[in-house]
């Protein structure tokens, strides 16, 4: 087979897989969208103050404004749809899109497939949806769920909170012991024990759902980004050294757009979807 035919065959197979994904989301009343590619740098920074500007891919256009090339898909979706929404409406969208960041080696492009729900979010339904979604893949997708804001409440006012967060991120109990007083360390220790039962009303739903769906609870799981205020989810699959799926609840992010609405989103590696989605 020629190289061109080989390439065309891959593109056709990928298109069939995208059709499978479309069928999955269309059956659940999701709308396909193409998130905006550009936004003004000043608007993006205002909505995402913790993002380092040097990691953004910026363009100066002839209208005199600086623009940023889609650094984050969720921001683009919130920016496009939140101003149109009333508080009792719910938006369910899915997308296939790339985000762009500067890295030490130049432009880094992240090809993703994902979905977002803004408005009414039912966590039980979302875990059920993820469980159904995972069945579309040829390899098992191991879902890990955490609730970062619970462990964060022990350290949020600590002067070394960023260093402590990094230690939690790497699950380094040795470093945590050095950084925390004995009482706080002892209080946080059960979060690293998957058999410990932590009493917190926010977790009771997850404990109940664990009996119904196949996922692992990891209460020391820390997100890459700080905006996950409810549950945080990562998915691992054999053959992939990093998570192939991540997302969670980010209600507080809508406040930056002057709305108080629930929000939930999941993003998957498009590369993984093309390779592992059942034909």
């Amino acid at each position: 087979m020629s190289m061109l035919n080989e390439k065309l065959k891959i593109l056709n197979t990928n298109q069939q897989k995208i059709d499978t994904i479309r069928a999955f989301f269309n059956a659940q009343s999701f709308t396909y969208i193409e998130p905006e590619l550009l936004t003004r740098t000043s608007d993006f920074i205002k909505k995402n103050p913790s993002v380092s500007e040097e990691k953004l891919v910026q363009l100066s256009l002839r209208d005199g404004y600086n623009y940023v090339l889609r650094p984050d898909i969720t921001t683009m979706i919130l920016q496009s749809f939140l101003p149109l929404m009333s508080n009792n409406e719910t938006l369910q969208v899915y997308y296939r899109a790339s985000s762009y960041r500067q890295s030490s080696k130049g432009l880094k492009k992240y090809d993703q497939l994902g979905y977002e729900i803004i408005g009414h979010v039912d966590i039980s339904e979302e875990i059920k949806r993820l469980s159904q979604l995972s069945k579309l893949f040829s390899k098992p997708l191991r879902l890990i769920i955490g609730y970062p804001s619970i462990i964060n409440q022990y350290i949020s006012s600590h002067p070394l909170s960023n260093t402590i967060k990094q230690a939690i991120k790497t699950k380094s109990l040795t470093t945590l012991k050095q950084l925390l007083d004995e009482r706080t360390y002892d209080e946080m220790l059960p979060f690293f024990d998957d058999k410990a039962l932590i009493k917190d009303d926010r977790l009771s739903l997850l404990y109940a759902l664990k009996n119904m769906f196949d996922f692992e609870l990891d209460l020391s799981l820390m997100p890459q980004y700080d905006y996950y205020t409810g549950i945080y989810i990562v998915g691992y699959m054999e053959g992939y050294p990093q998570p192939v799926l991540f997302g969670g609840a980010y209600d507080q992010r809508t406040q930056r757009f002057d709305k108080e609405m629930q929000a939930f989103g999941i993003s998957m590696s498009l590369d993984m979807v093309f390779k592992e989605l059942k034909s």
Partner: protein
Amino acid sequence: MITIAIPTGRLGKQSIQLLKKVQLIESHFEIQRQLRYENKEQRIIYVFVKPSDVMTYIESGLADIGIIGSDTIEETSANIYELMDLNIGVCKMVVAGLNTNIFNEKETIKVATKYDKIATQYFQSINKEVNIFHLNGSVELAPLIALTDVIVDITETGTTLKENGLNIIDTISQISGRLICNQASYYLKSTQVNTIKNRLGKHI
């Protein structure tokens, strides 16, 4: 099958002693020039790599578990999990120089180090302005030829520092060998990872 990355050098030798003690590697095994060794009975593959490459092997999933100094973990901030302190390869990260009063005498300190991030964080924590000179080796030479005022480096006994007339000005942190794990392996191979962790834990 699980793959363990062992650093070459002093920490590697101590790691193998420990792995022999907990019978994760056969007692007759001797590290020479081999790059890979398989313990078929325990279903473990060992790969022997440069200390600076252990983190790459773990983060990229080429190995599931590895042993590395805590200095490398602090310096690289890689996406890995740190499972336990193995209490081997114990040493400390220090600031050393010819003049122990240099912090009071100069507003901006010139620092030679292999550990830019650790040095930067330390001097930020004590509100001292610095110019960092990144060197890959013979860091002790820098103050001797007046390239810098101090160095930030690891020392076990302090002998090399003393031999070069350098004095310890402050200790930044205690360094030791840590058991680290690839994040996916932590969940996908949890039974094997925990077995290894627990066996090592009983002998520390």
